[in-house]
């Protein structure tokens, strides 16, 4: 009986390709939208995680001022760090792999006719190690260059591209504001950060060079600390906080005038955010799936009216009410499932295209694919039942007489 109903339903679908196509369109779009949204969302989540990884492994950042954002007011009123703080961290906090002091400022980089507004980062030879950032060419700062505050610099990939194009920058002199300095190395490209910044848009100089010849003070704005592999960053963070409270004479119980950020925390917060956004988009897309179900019901109902005479003929040649019910139900479910499959294929293709366009990784979520398929089949049953019952309850004489 089931086999027969399937034969009849498939014949019916094949018999009217246009109507079948229109019927499943809603489901195709609904499922496609859900899959696309989820694929993009998952890609974005994976991207955020990768970006955080790119910032450096086990990286802790110490900023002055309070709060997460480190807003201007609090930051400027809090006293800066000094090289003594940096050395104290190196010597007194356990589990530290590398420490790099940094001072940043915006400036204009000029080479020949090229002019590029960029960020100057004053730091030491530990910077590339702390940030897990290999050099593309050249060398790191030497001990003597750091000590003397020599006019040497390492270029980020964006600055290199903007100033030199395909020319080899090693050995050339770049002017940063009033300072002319020699390029000794270039960094590999890290791309955009999870916050949308171009991480490659910077010039790295020895800390002392920036302090003396660009900003004109001996301050350290922030300190980057990377923990050794296998050491808990929570422990290092706690040790850093207590050391700096002591050094900066923060009273017990008072809010510190600095903050230590663990990038993992930011990472999980951002991952959480993108997850929520993904669910939200998927929910919106799911509504269109529901609308697709109503579309199926609509067209099936029209089709029942249109096929009244045919149903009458079927009843006359011996179909029972449940044969007709089953046939219409199977038609609806087959159409919905078929729509689901097309929607999945379309959604995955659109997702692949979109993730490619947004430069995020393509992540296949098998769970959501199965779920949308099951959901579209369920939509077929639920929204197909009402028209099917209507068809099955037709009176054979009335149906045969129907024009």
């Amino acid at each position: 009986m089931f086999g027969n109903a399937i034969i009849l339903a498939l014949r019916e679908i094949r018999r009217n390709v246009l109507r079948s196509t229109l019927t499943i369109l809603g489901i195709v779009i609904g499922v496609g939208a859900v899959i696309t949204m989820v694929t993009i969302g998952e890609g974005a989540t994976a991207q955020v995680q990768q970006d955080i990884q790119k910032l450096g492994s086990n990286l802790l950042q110490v900023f002055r001022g309070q709060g997460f954002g480190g807003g201007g007011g609090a930051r400027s009123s809090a006293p800066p760090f000094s090289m003594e703080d940096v050395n104290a961290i190196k010597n007194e906090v356990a589990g530290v792999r590398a420490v790099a002091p940094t001072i940043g400022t915006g400036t204009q980089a000029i080479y020949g006719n090229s002019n590029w507004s960029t960020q100057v980062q004053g730091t030491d030879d530990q910077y590339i190690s702390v940030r897990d950032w290999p050099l593309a060419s050249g060398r790191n700062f030497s001990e003597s260059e750091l000590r003397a505050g020599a006019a040497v610099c390492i270029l980020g990939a964006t600055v290199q591209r903007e100033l030199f194009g395909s020319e080899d920058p090693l050995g050339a002199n770049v002017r940063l504001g009033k300072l002319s300095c020699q390029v000794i190395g270039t960094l590999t490209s890290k791309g955009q950060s999870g916050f949308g910044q171009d991480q490659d848009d910077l010039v790295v100089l020895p800390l002392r060079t920036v302090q003396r010849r660009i900003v004109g003070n001996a301050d350290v704005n922030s300190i980057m600390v990377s923990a050794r592999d296998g050491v808990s960053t929570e422990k290092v963070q706690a040790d850093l906080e207590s050391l700096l409270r002591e050094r900066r004479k923060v009273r017990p119980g008072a809010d510190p005038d600095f903050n230590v950020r663990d990038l993992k925390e930011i990472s999980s917060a951002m991952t959480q955010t993108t997850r929520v956004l993904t669910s939200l988009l998927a929910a919106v897309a799911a509504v269109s799936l529901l609308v697709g179900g109503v579309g199926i019901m609509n067209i099936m109902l029209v089709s029942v009216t249109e096929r009244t005479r045919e149903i009458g003929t079927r009843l006359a040649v011996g179909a029972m009410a449940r044969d007709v019910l089953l046939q219409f139900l199977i038609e609806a479910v087959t159409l919905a499932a078929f729509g689901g499959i097309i929607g999945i294929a379309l959604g995955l293709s659109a997702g692949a295209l979109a993730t490619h366009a947004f430069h995020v990784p393509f992540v296949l979520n098998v769970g959501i694919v199965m779920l949308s398929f099951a959901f579209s089949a369920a939509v077929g049953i639920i929204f197909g039942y009402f028209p099917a019952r209507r068809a099955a309850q037709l009176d054979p004489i009335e149906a045969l007489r129907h024009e």
Partner: protein
Amino acid sequence: MTGMPSAPTPIIDLSQVTKIYGHGAGEVRALRGIDLRINAGEFIAVMGPSGSGKSTCMNVLGCLDTPTGGTYKFLGVPVGNMSPDQRALLRRNYLGFVFQGFNLLSRTTALENVELPLVYRHVPKEQRRALARKALQEVGLGGRETHVPSQLSGGQQQRVAIARAIVTQPQVLFADEPTGNLDTATSVEIMKLLTSLNEQRGITIAMVTHEPDIAGWTRRIVRFRDGYIESDQINEPVREL
């Protein structure tokens, strides 16, 4: 099959059958007490003006409708109180239908149309194909299996419908104005086909018509008027063979 056999088993036995539509003042008495027996092998025409009750009678006979009163025995079994599903089974296993408007499934091949009752009978695919092919040959449409109704003439479509009705070897074939949509020449062809099915295959045929020429092909003519049987006569069928 000539003359009246001594005690033929009636396939259809109506006694004092009534059919009333609606209630109270608006009620319509379509059948007002019909007595009718149809024996195996008969070819009978049901005639009468519109509103005479002939169509209602055919619907009752074809188990598409139930009588309001009286008894209807099909092969000796009362069918008056059967459920819709039981009546569907009766139609599936014992009855065949031919309609004025052919009622073929559009965009469906002749073969698939003829197969339809067999699908509901759960006949396996190979056997279904073979039986449908044979039925199409019997009505003279061998070679047209893959044609869809829109590619066939009216007469051909009616032949497909007749093939669909006889493919299940029914006890009775009900034909409701089978020539109503056809021209005279084609009508003659269809009547020849029905006559040969009746005479060669022994299929019992009950046909509604309002055309005396068409009724003339049968061997018994029942006339309805105002819900009664007005006359029931033996007819000497025309032979234009």
